[in-house]
């Protein structure tokens, strides 16, 4: 399994702070496995992806195996 951590407003969109998805996942697989609203959101260039704590430069670089943690990160808030 792969844990998907949803941050900020993406947690609202996903309805939970984390999801569990079957391994492995690449960029196409992630989009297909996410609920539609979340799949749409992760395509937005403002939302970033990290795998095991490392930010991806390109989302198409995504390759996550069993036990990996994928984080979906919206832009940080001002204050």
């Amino acid at each position, binding site marked *: 399994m792969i844990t998907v951590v949803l941050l*900020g*407003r993406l*947690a609202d969109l996903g309805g939970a702070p984390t999801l569990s998805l079957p391994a492995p996942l690449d960029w196409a697989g992630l989009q297909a496995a996410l609920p539609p609203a979340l799949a749409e959101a992760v395509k937005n260039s403002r939302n970033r992806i990290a795998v095991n704590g490392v930010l991806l430069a390109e989302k198409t670089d995504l390759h996550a195996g069993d036990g990996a943690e994928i984080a979906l990160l919206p832009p*940080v*808030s*001002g*204050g």
Partner: protein
Amino acid sequence: MRDIRLLDQMFLPGLLIGPFTQANKGMGGVCTFVGEVRSDTGVEALELSHYEPLTLPGMHGLADRAFARFSLMGLLMVHRVGLMRPGEPIVCVSAAALHRRDAIDAVDFCMDHLKSAAWFWKREKRVGEWHWIEPRDQDHSDLARW
């Protein structure tokens, strides 16, 4: 002395700054900024979420850059996460240096970069409802200063 922390409980800045100042003997000065949750009309609470694998390394990376850029004897960078009420401290950055300019500029630099270096997501509770806070333009102009 280098002290970088994420705290999920209310903290008293004075209890951090006192020992920090004591730990940097022989310094010329210490500059400290403490940010509090503003009492804006109708804001009942603020919640800050973070993603530990990115947020803490982001703060450490920012501290590295501050030490590389300024002549510092010590740097304290503490950020709250979790649920906060108006008036509670949310961030405390303190820099000790032989020279005033380094201490003040390091605090200014860290505060300007904290939000982009460390990943935090803020939401406010107004009239019982939570609202996510969007990035502000001011943040970008602050970063353009450096």
